[in-house]
């Protein structure tokens, strides 16, 4: 079962490594990880994706809650939530026109950050869910992707 957890953790030395270390120590896996400081700077929010049976997920949550620096663990999978991932992709197209055409076929908003006319390469930014992102990458085709870098998934429960 794929599970997205939102973990609020105090900004203390070692706090992140305690969270991440817990996973390797207990044989759980992290598929995606994204961390950033909350506005007050006293806390950080960690969004992570893990896989496991219901029992394992229950243990993961309890183990996380037990960490002294962790203030809250939310299982977003069990609530209605929005999730997003951002990718920067360097694409090589036959021509920029054909790339624009491809983009419109894919039906997503690609922000073109830079375009190199001579070499027909563009650097684009795209935001999507994890599944959609996989789809986009498939449609672009591995042959035309020169490089790709993706953020961890971030997520939030809907109001």
């Amino acid at each position: 079962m794929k599970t997205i957890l939102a973990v609020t953790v105090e900004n203390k030395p070692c706090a992140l490594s305690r969270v991440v270390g817990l996973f390797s120590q207990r044989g759980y896996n992290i598929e995606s990880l994204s961390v950033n400081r909350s506005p007050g700077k006293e806390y950080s929010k960690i969004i992570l994706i893990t896989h496991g049976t219901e029992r394992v997920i229950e243990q993961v949550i309890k183990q996380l809650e037990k960490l002294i620096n962790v203030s809250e663990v939310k299982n977003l999978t069990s609530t209605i939530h929005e999730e997003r991932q951002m990718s920067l992709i360097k694409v090589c197209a036959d021509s920029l026109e054909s790339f624009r055409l491809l983009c419109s076929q894919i039906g997503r908003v690609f922000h073109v950050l830079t375009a190199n006319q001579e070499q027909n390469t563009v650097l684009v930014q795209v935001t999507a869910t994890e599944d959609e992102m996989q789809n986009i990458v498939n449609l672009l085709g591995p042959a035309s992707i020169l490089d790709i870098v993706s953020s961890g998934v971030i997520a939030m429960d809907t109001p």
Partner: protein
Amino acid sequence: MINCTGGDLLMLALKEEEVDTIFGYPGGSALHIYDAIYRQSEIRHILVRHEQAATHAADGYSRSTGKPGVVLVTSGPGATNAITGIATAYMDSIPMIVISGQVPSDKIGEDAFQETDMMGISRPIVKHSFSITDPNEIPLIVKQAFHIATTGRPGPVVIDIPKNMSGPSASYTYSRAQSLQLPNYKLPAQPTGQEIQTALDMINQSARPIIYAGGGIVLGEASEELREFAFSTGFPVTLTLMGLGAFPADDEQFIGMVGMHGTVAANRAMHHSDLIIALGVRFDDRVTNKIEKFCPNSKVLHVDIDPTSISKIIPAHHAINSSVKDVLTDLNKSIQEFDRNSMKSSKWWQEINEWRACYPTSDYTSPKDCGQRISPQHAINAIYKATKGDAFVTSDVGQHQMFAAQHYKFHKPNRWINSGGLGTMGFGLPAALGVKIAHPDELVICVTGEGSIQMCIQELSTLKQYNLPVMIFCLNNESLGMVKQWQDLNYESRYSEISYGDSLPDFTSLAKAYGHEGICIQNQSELEDKLAEAMSMRDKVVFVEIQVTHDEHVYPMQIVPHGSIKDIQINKEECV
């Protein structure tokens, strides 16, 4: 107090926590702290001979008193030497404070002399850890560390102190930490009425109940409550290795230890029960044997202070995440009208008593057909008698440990002190040292093997320095007996690396070289007299080597890895 160094702040904060003893070993990064130790007189420092021993001694101190043991080591090798002892304490949930020196903060990360990442290395084996970034934080962090170590499920806490945080370069004013400031530290709530009622319903509906209690009873100081609960209900009681002493071994409701080397009766009773009342236990693999075959018809009522222990291995039908003491207190209030007599005369007890009669513990302890050689089980029985069953017993790890657990009958909690979770050879002697510090007037003995004792034997010197008369009983079978047993059972007796040739030291001379007494017992016929001789020297460290038979196996033994809890080998030939 004004004009304090960071080291002074540390000592004052430790005094605030009523620390009377530190077990430690000095070195560069800890020197400012050692200077602060020198300049005060209320806290005693015990200089061990190896940092591992400092942690085990603090551990023994803690297990025998319930108070956290305190360790002080230097950075680098001092810190890494402490790791085994921290892991040992962690696995058995023992409250401990480990203060490690660290290189100055501006040197951290530069591979400075004796630098090691203590926060990183210790992270998976501590309940929590702190690194000091400002000496002014010391009083608060010490307070937090003690609180974390001793509350909830206890455990070791590390405080890493860079050298410049403890030194005299600036002076500070000590002010006691007022509030804890641990907003995110969660402790379990009191049990609710509904939780207690559901437990009572399960208890009332059960025809074949069993109380399965463990280290949580000892740590949670709930032995009295357990005894009352058992008395009111008349239910059979089994204990884990860690729980021994939490219920008196000579009580007729005690059916023996559960698990790998537990009694047939206890393991069968678990298997055939319809209700397991699990109190302060964690369904360790050394208890359950194969999970898939675990107690097929039993409901599980699980009480534990640690939420992660609940349903981790065996799903609980009803769980109460509170302290066992609180839960038992509440249960005891409601259980008064329980018909304990009809329980006592039930078919369930009849069955259990038949198992008990069929496979009595005494089968193992009578002198065996081994001529003049002494069997280790018999040796433990003789030690039990010689010490009148009233000693603090520390143990090392191996066959002798299991024999001690099986045949030394513990009647009180905090008396059986062994490394159950990590199984750390070398634990016994330094742990006995720590117990003796805490209980100078009590009889403290260490049951060990000729393998284990050599892992921390240097502590004989510490015992001498501080005049700590503990009695050491070394069951010498001239091999790593427990390993040999597994090689007999699983590797057709291919004995790979379990003996020392003829290199074993003469333990009697060795003990004497350290300034102690040494006694060697070789024959059955001299066992009792020589034990009595040892007991007559209560004011000395006496190293008693007992030469025991070489081919003994620990039985009963669960059949691993595919057996259920009740599939048991009872001697070299028979399984039941």
